[in-house]
């Protein structure tokens, strides 16, 4: 046999040739998160994967509060299009630089009360707890006005019952915590059908909600109108 004798290095070099040479530079937000608590990346990505599995396939997806786009590639993988909005200019610049494409679009804006189109899915993870209570209604209304008639809304936020264990950075930013009842009630103002899931670490489940570290609420069948 004249087959060339390969070693492990040759095999890996072949893989590297297939991978291309794009380089991702994270911004301050995710660089901090990775330094501070690297396992959080797996928790956050699993929330995005769950949202993507529920409601991204062949849909135009809008994400409200996308930060640097850490979950954008998961949300857009099977979507028709992806739009991410965030008011943090550094975060949006990082997202644009790393990920902008025909399919993925990032907008720097304070999204409260604004419409960006008619989307099949609106996702907002780890955002509502940063919205001051007086703007809460407007936050949910923003999801509503961006959704197409048969659209699906996905909202995730840390459970109020886990607040005691939150880090300083988390506690500093959290100004409006939710438990299952409060989140479900808020979503039921927009949707006829609302499902609530719990997440502990990276595992999504339907267990006893006060012991869930994180809550994800999925709303579908939009109501005809919402109270102002």
């Amino acid at each position, binding site marked *: 046999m004249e087959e060339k004798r390969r070693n492990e290095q040759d095999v890996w070099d072949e893989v590297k040739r297939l991978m291309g*040479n794009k*380089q991702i530079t994270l911004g*301050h937000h995710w660089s901090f998160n990775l330094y501070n608590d*690297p396992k959080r990346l*797996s928790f956050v990505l699993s929330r995005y*994967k769950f949202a993507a599995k529920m409601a991204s396939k062949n849909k135009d997806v809008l994400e409200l509060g996308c930060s640097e786009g850490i979950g954008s590639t998961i949300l857009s*993988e099977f979507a028709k299009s992806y739009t991410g909005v965030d008011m943090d200019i550094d975060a949006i610049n990082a997202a644009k630089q790393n990920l902008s494409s025909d399919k993925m679009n990032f907008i720097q804006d304070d999204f409260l009360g604004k419409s960006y189109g008619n989307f099949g899915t609106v996702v907002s993870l780890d955002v509502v707890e940063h919205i001051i209570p007086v703007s809460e209604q407007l936050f949910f209304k923003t999801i509503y006005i961006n959704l197409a008639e048969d659209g699906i809304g996905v909202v995730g936020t840390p459970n109020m019952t886990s607040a005691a264990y939150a880090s300083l*950075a988390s506690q500093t930013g959290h100004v409006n915590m939710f438990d299952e009842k409060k989140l479900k009630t808020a979503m039921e103002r927009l949707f006829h059908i609302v499902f609530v899931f719990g997440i502990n670490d990276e595992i999504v489940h339907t267990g006893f909600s006060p012991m869930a570290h994180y809550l994800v609420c999925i709303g579908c069948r939009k109501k005809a109108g919402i109270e102002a």
Partner: protein
Amino acid sequence: MKNNKSRSCWEPVKDIMGKHKVIFGQHLSYQFINTPRRILHMMSYYKFASKIIGKGKNVLDVGCGEGLGTWLLAAECGRAKGIDTDYEAIETGRKNWKDSKVSFDYVDFFAVDSNETYDAIVSFDVLEHILPENRFKFWNKVAELSDDNGIAVIGTPNITSDQYASPVTKAGHVNLYSGERLEEELGSIFSHVFMFGANDEVVHTGFLPMAHYLIAVAFHKRRL
């Protein structure tokens, strides 16, 4: 007004975050763009390893790539060293993770000096890239580098999932394992082997042939 208020409550968080910038190298960047869920799966394997290993341990991460998981092991377990034969990946790791808890070496696992032993040897997605004729060289090195009370956490894709693998993934796989073979080979080096399966980010003890990924936890090395 409202908008300005909600904007301002993000600012204190930004103050805490500081000005670090983590740069992904070729491999993680490829994954982040093309197969982003793989990063989730990998990080959950590392989290699993860190929980199994525990606190106050010195860990060797074999085939650490760019060292994102090595940093998780260091942060959670106390100390970690990552080694890899990919020079660019090691340089990426060194640049991103500057901390006394973590270090990186550009060195072939087979050539690692066995004067230093570790509380735990972790190796994810390496075994399937080792040529079959070198596999016992690999196991012996794992045993050699682990402390008498050390544990090994070895993860590799299940051979039963190979039919679904992407071309890029398949290009590198030269030594795929079933649960039985992994348990048997590790069992010849260590007295106890616990077998886990992983599907996506969930690590479990379910029916192994249907597990996408295999993670073996082995300890109490045999006197050879």
